[in-house]
């Protein structure tokens, strides 16, 4: 029995996948506001490290969520659900595990089974074996993980810096807009994007 061309292509894609390259796999969509920062979307099955902004993490959840994927949030008991909803995250498909405690790895691995994107606070110390097993699981499930904090060998590191706020003065006014600069380091390349959130006050 001969293999069809399609089978061969998908087998090759599988192999490429397992080597950490992304040919062929559809990227996770991102929120239109973040499109300049992630022009080709989020790569599936890899870990991003995000520093400095929970808002950006919520914005990253919005893209897969709007496409109908389940999303998970691990270890963020103080998550602003209303802000997530404002970004367009479908709360009916958002699962929160506020306190995974010792079971951080197994929780993230379990959520990777069902979710398109998981956002998690950085865990305590993990052994290299645990890291390896988790990244392998993420790769096979094609689930992306955004770690808020540092992560060894992240596919990309996103530094978010708040440049300034509009609307608040000395003793009067109210916050209307946030200016954020994203510095993204991916494969030794660095790009910076400035965002205004929300676009219209």
């Amino acid at each position: 029995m001969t293999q069809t061309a399609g089978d061969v292509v998908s087998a090759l894609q599988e192999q490429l996948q397992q080597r950490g390259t992304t040919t062929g796999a559809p990227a996770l969509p991102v929120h239109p506001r973040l499109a300049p920062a992630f022009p080709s979307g989020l790569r599936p099955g890899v870990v991003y490290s995000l520093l400095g902004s929970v808002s950006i993490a919520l914005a990253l959840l919005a893209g897969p969520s709007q496409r109908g994927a389940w999303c998970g949030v691990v270890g963020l008991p103080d998550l602003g659900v209303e802000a997530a909803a404002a970004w367009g995250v479908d709360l009916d498909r958002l699962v929160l595990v506020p306190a995974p405690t010792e079971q951080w790895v197994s929780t993230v691995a379990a959520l990777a089974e069902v979710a398109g994107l998981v956002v998690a606070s950085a865990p305590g110390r993990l052994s290299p074996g645990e890291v390896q097993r988790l990244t392998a699981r993420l790769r096979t499930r094609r689930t992306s993980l955004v770690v808020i904090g540092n992560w060894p060998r992240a596919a990309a590191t996103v530094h978010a810096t708040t440049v300034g706020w509009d609307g608040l003065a000395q003793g009067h006014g109210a916050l209307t807009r946030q200016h954020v600069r994203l510095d993204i380091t991916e494969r030794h390349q660095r790009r910076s994007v400035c965002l205004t959130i929300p676009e219209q006050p």
Partner: protein
Amino acid sequence: MSGEEDAAKAGGEGRAPGRSGALRVLLVWCPDWSIGAVQRAQGFDPDEQLALVDRGIVVACSATAREEGVEPGLRVRQAQHRCPDMTVLPHDPALELHEFEPVMRAIEDKIPGVHLVRPGLAAVRSKGASRFYGSDRAAAQTLLTHLRSYVDHDVRVAVADGLFAAEQAAYTTSIESPVAHLAPRESATFLAHLPISALEHEISSPRMLNVLRRMGIRTLGDLATLPRPDVHSRFGAAGLRAHQLAQGADAPALDPRRVPRDLTAATTFEPGTDQVEHIVATCSPSVDDLMASLTSDALLCNGIRVVIHTDDGRVSRRVWRHPWHFTAAEVLDRVRWQLDDLSADSECDDLTGEFLTRMITSVHVEPESVDSAAHHAPGLWGDRPDEHVVQTLTGLQHQLGHEGVLVSAVSGGRLLDERRVLRPWGDALPVPRERRLEQPWPGTVPGPPPATVFAEARPVQVLTDDRAGVVVDDRGEVSAAPTVLASDGPQRITAWAGPWPVQQRWWRGGAAYHRFQVVDAGGRAWLLLTDGRRWWAEARYD
């Protein structure tokens, strides 16, 4: 009496000729049902002084409390003044109804087509029954004997024309003579002598009754002699209904309700045990049976009530709601969680210094809200998420505990933490109507919602240049411009605004708070709360 003839003419409108207006009704009344139901369900001594309260008004009280002068309609405080040892419980119509189901079933055993008037009061058409048992009296007597053997409660029976007349006749009975019988067409005469206040429960218009009383109309007979069009035009629909009732022209139909089968899955333990896994495993077959009988009735269940009895007389009663319908495994999970909660509870109950464990003597699982499976075609509301998702998340829940995996919704409220509703995975979230998002919430924060909302507000310090705390007085005057915010470490404040008052249930003596928005030199923006002197971070924009 010419009035009666008029009444007969007026009442004859719109009805088939030659038929008396109201239906012959056989009514079963259980006096003081509300109290009896609570006493049985919660295991109260019948002699205990007890009152049920709805919105601060006593709606029912036990006989012992009544002896002390407590009566329905009193304010709680007045009632407690008269009877200080009384136990006050919230009025729970759902529980009363639930306790009444067995009575409905018992009536159904003898006479089919039971109409529920309200918990404690049920009616059947007497026509078929009296033909079957020989006469109205015989039917009433048979029903009474059956119920007496079945129900552990005072039961009275009345037969009359129409529901209203039967109810009024039932109120004339006593424990010694528990059956009231009004011959056909006798009802109008019986009603005519009743005071106008008999209408109070039927027509919730105290103003109308008051006006009638001031007009000198004191009995239903007086009301019945008035021309119906005049009463209608003066008092509207309530007047029309009152006039019809006064003339004994009650609704010519009953609405028989299909009494659901008793589907409770009961498991008893003799002797009691505290082994959670053993209990869950023992309950499993009866829960499977329950699910099978639901399926055979083409019913789906998305709410269950789990009642656990312990050997020290405590009852743990909890309703679990599910966003879609339950499976047997999911029901058993909830039994397990409730048992876990109960045993966690008993550890705190450690008063004597000894370790107390409660022995579980029985577990009851009752379907609380069932619906026809036909209403839940796949793809509509109530559809289960992908089985894989359910299994994974339920598995995670087994690992982390019931409260470990949550789903969320946005709800109405002033404080940000109140606006965030978190529920364990598998519990139903509040429906949009309950979230009250569309209501105006004066004092809510303008601008974009903060990404971090602290589950518990964190204490911070807000200082002036000379390191003194910023104080806000009752009128919202700020003592000095805040310049330093100390949370993890001191940071200069670059911009701020406030105070914005948060009016939060001041009528319950809750503290008045003021809100401030500040931006610190690190670029982080905060939402702060203060009661005047102390400061907390409510949320962070980051």
